[in-house]
């Protein structure tokens, strides 16, 4: 695909996804996975998970960070520029329009009914994607990974453990594994 076409497609996709990111940064991440991994096959699923880890670990909004990593991977600095524009223009326009009449918007019955229904839809989208991703981790048939996933989920969802702490512990486990593997390699 030529570069111009790729950049255009990247802009349109990030713009479109950003328009529907109701309910926080992880929603856009799941939508990106559907679009860039499943539909366009531009990125592998594993790489997408690496990108989410980067987006989550860096400061700032996950949606913006996610757009930057994906943009950089696909088209370098121009990709970053284009996907950032795509990501921030929709909320910018929407908030600008709403700020003129935000009390009417906030108290509108039809809008809140629509949003209430969409919330159930968003819940289904994020749950479906997590199910697919969890299935892939299980399919790797690596017990350590499965146990880590269960513990991380319980820690995060049930015990409200800080996400940064979970990421740090995972990084430490990875470093330890890498160190042990190297030591084993040297002994053989």
């Amino acid at each position, binding site marked *: 695909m030529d570069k111009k076409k790729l950049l255009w497609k990247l802009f349109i996709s990030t713009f*479109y996804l950003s328009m529907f990111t109701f309910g926080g940064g992880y929603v856009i991440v799941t939508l990106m996975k559907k679009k860039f991994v499943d539909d366009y096959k531009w990125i592998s699923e594993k790489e997408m998970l690496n990108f989410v880890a980067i987006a989550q670990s860096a400061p700032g*909004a996950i949606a913006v960070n996610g757009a930057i*990593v994906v943009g950089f991977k696909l088209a370098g600095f121009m990709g970053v520029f284009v996907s950032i524009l795509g990501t921030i223009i929709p909320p910018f326009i929407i908030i600008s329009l709403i*700020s003129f009449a935000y009390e009417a918007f906030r108290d509108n019955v*039809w809008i809140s009914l629509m949003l209430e229904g969409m919330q*159930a839809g968003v819940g*289904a989208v994020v749950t479906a994607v997590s199910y*697919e991703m969890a299935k892939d981790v299980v399919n790797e048939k690596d017990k350590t990974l499965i146990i880590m996933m269960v513990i991380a989920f319980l820690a995060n969802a049930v015990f409200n453990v800080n996400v940064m702490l979970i990421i740090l512990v995972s990084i430490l486990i990875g470093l330890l594994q890498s160190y042990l593997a190297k030591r084993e390699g040297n002994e053989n």
Partner: protein
Amino acid sequence: MIYLQLFWSFLQVGMFSFGGGYAALPLIESIVVKQHGWLSIAEFTDLITISQMTPGPISVNSATFVGLSIGGFWGAVVATLGNIAPSIVLVTLISWLYMKYNSLDTLQTVLKALRPAVVAMIATAGVTLIVTAFWGEGAIVLSNTNIVAVVLFGLGMFFLLKYNVSPILVMILAGVANVLWAVLSGSV
């Protein structure tokens, strides 16, 4: 110089909000409400409500909203730029390092160890969304369950997993179905 102040304030928000979304709220509040008095507490609460009702990251929404009311269109642009500037620098740098050293064994092992945690975080976001959709802010008991939301969620999951329907279509249809249901059942 109001533009500089807006830029600098939202630069701080972008730089120190780890974990995205709600983690950034106390920081935004302390800068926007307490330090500068750009918004009253009531306006800030409205801003959070509107952010929940519109797509886009809360920090970007806040930057646009506050920027507009303090410095007009260019105020909004400057505040939003300040908000995303740290992400642009940091995440681009991390992405570049990632692409460069991706093949290193150690990095591969660490990223592999991060994958379960990332899936767990996305799944947690799913759980939070479901809880809000089914029970709102109220108690998690059977009598308080939003049955329509449960049905919409179930249908959404079914079409997503079985027929691979577009996630955005699922979200919109769920919203429309909820409005239709309210009209047909006469609750509006």
